[in-house]
């Protein structure tokens, strides 16, 4: 198979150049390709069922630009690198095979000044706060920004025709939500087209990473998207521990997985309630937000924090789980599970909810595969990938979680996947608390002077969290690229709302519940 050829070449290349190996994620390989191979590799990946994990730009030790793309397939993870020289005015785009690459390529252009041959050359993360000539990941000194911010014009794609009008929404939304802009073109109540504009909460995270020592970068990683703090900080530590060639103690790995499942539970419980609320079922919000609060309080009693922002640290976890804490967690989880069971029956039998959920915001499995829908939303549209099952890191191989999956691809399916994952995560939490290995929960790391590069890849509650880390001299971060699955899934919402009515947009949007901060960086 054509796809396998690239993995084989990567294996040969890394054998001949051991120092360039990528560590952190099992079955991860790097391959440097030539300009004319970049698109061929992407085409073969797409043909062989490979999926795009992330696309970003970096620089080598000499200051020459490199663009990278990470793919995942049955054979594992492959990071392609394409070195660019000053003579390269642009690099080949891959949106033809991976539509989700478009916005990533536009972000690379904004942050690193490297443009592709693909058609959409509009800025993405850059609005009007800094000039087009400034590239935050390349240029050392930042220009002074204008005293008063200005309104920038963005070329939305116009929709014309009899009775078509536009509804602009945001960036400030009518709720407690992150900011972003949605431009609806509608006829009557029906949505003809939605175009998203994001980047409002871009706060320079990737550049900020380079000001952090390697041993404290996990704190910034945890704040890429606060609702996925455990997943991002674990991915960061996985990459760093790969660079340090360190093995965390079994107890630390189990505690991390425990924290990750608690994070998944908290978000799923909150979402199921909020989705019910968006369909007019306030009872659901009241009940599920109550359960979420109980879970957060149990988490606080067990680990000292409601949200486990700085729980995963390089070498293990910040705190251990005490015996009383473990007991309390199990009791809470059991009572929550019993309540969820009752509430699920109510959700399933509620005619009004069924009417709003079924057939709303459909993404068919074929469309999901074509657009690269990933994570939880992907599993609701027949894209049955879950890193915890397909490329498990410790301790998931031993825990053997059951994968949730639906094919309807509507709001009902995304709610159903959440319910299934709540049930599975409660089982995992109980199992982990009952069988925690004894021993240390933390070891000290020593970072090699020569630096290195590592990857992190963790199935967060929303989907695969990817992180690429390059260590520089003096124990500092040279480059860190965190990647949230929202990059892949935001463009799919534009398709999911077509032909739905405008009032269903909040419901459909909430059923995906994507991160703005994790995307805008």
């Amino acid at each position: 198979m054509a796809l396998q050829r690239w993995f084989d070449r990567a294996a040969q290349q890394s054998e001949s150049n051991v120092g360039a190996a990528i560590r952190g994620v099992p079955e991860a390989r790097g391959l440097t390709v030539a300009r004319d191979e970049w698109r061929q590799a992407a085409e073969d990946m797409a043909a062989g069922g490979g999926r795009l994990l992330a696309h970003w730009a970096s620089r080598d030790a000499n200051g020459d630009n490199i663009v990278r793309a990470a793919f995942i397939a049955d054979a594992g993870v492959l990071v392609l690198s394409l070195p660019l020289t000053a003579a390269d005015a642009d690099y080949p785009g891959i949106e033809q095979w991976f539509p989700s690459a478009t916005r990533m390529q536009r972000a690379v252009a904004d942050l690193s000044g490297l443009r592709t041959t693909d058609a959409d050359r509009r800025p993405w993360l850059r609005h009007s706060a800094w000039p087009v000539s400034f590239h935050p990941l390349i240029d050392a000194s930042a220009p002074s920004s204008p005293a008063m911010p200005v309104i920038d014009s963005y070329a939305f794609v116009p929709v014309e025709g009899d009775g078509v009008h536009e509804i602009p929404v945001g960036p400030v939304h009518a709720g407690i939500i992150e900011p972003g802009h949605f431009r609806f073109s509608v006829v009557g109540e029906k949505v003809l087209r939605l175009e998203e504009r994001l980047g409002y909460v871009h706060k320079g995270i990737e550049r900020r990473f380079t000001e952090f020592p390697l041993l404290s970068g996990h704190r910034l990683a945890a704040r890429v998207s606060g609702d996925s703090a455990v997943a991002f900080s674990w991915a960061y530590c996985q990459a760093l521990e790969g660079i340090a060639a360190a093995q965390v103690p079994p107890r630390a790995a189990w505690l991390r997985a425990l924290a990750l499942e608690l994070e998944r539970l908290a978000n799923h419980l909150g979402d199921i309630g909020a989705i019910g609320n968006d369909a007019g079922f306030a009872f659901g919000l009241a009940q599920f937000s109550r359960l979420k609060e109980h879970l957060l309080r149990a988490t606080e009693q067990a680990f000292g924090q409601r949200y486990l922002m700085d729980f995963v640290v390089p070498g293990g976890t910040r705190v251990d789980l005490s015996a009383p804490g473990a007991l309390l967690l199990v009791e809470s989880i059991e009572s929550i599970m019993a309540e969820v069971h009752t509430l699920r029956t109510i959700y399933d039998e509620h005619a009004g909810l069924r009417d709003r959920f079924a057939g709303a915001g459909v993404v068919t499995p074929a469309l999901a595969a074509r657009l690269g829908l990933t994570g939880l939303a992907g599993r609701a549209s027949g894209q049955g990938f879950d890193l915890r099952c397909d490329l498990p890191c410790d301790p998931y191989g031993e825990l053997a979680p059951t994968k949730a999956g639906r094919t309807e691809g509507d709001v009902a399916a995304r709610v159903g996947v959440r319910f299934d994952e709540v049930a599975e995560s409660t089982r995992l939490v109980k199992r982990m608390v009952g069988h925690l290995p004894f021993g240390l929960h933390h070891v000290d790391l020593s970072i090699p002077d020569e630096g290195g590069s590592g990857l992190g890849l963790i199935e967060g509650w929303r989907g695969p969290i990817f992180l690429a880390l390059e260590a520089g001299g003096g124990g500092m971060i040279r480059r860190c690229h965190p990647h949230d699955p929202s990059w892949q899934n935001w463009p799919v919402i534009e398709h999911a709302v077509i032909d739905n009515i405008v009032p269903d947009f909040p419901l459909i949007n909430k059923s995906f519940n994507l991160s703005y901060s994790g995307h805008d960086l």
Partner: protein
Amino acid sequence: MLKTLRQIGRIGIITEPPPSSDDTLRVADQLQSRILEVLGRALCIRAVDAGSCNGCELETHALNNPLYNIEGLGIRFVASPRHADLLLITGPVAKNMELALRRTYDATPDPKLVVAIGDCGCTGGIFGESYASCGRVSNVIPVDVAVPGCPPSPHQILSGILTAIAKAVPDTSSLRSRE
């Protein structure tokens, strides 16, 4: 329907006294009457995320759950700055959000209060000031009260809101003393 009603009946009213000690309960009772006295109606809050990691949003959401039941105190979140008495701002102010935040502030009728939430809102937090971040909220608009924490707990956020009201109404000495 029967199951729904049974569940409602079984759970009952679970709202806790806001913030949890007796002393503060007294404050909250007083607060409600102060809010009515000063505003003549409920306190309306407009939440604006000016660049947060969304952690502070999670805890702000929690204020609406039945245990904190912020609406029971006469405080509610509204959908427009034009309806608001108080702006609740999270995050360092991203440069891409600076204009939207200034406009939201200008659209809020006087007299208005501003509460900045979280370490980022207080100081710029872990993101600091950069080409993309204006840092703390008070670098962009006037702030009355800043609540630290990463993220602050719902109690701390509620306490910050109460403090802002106490600050705005000079003669509520008991409200001040609880800080």
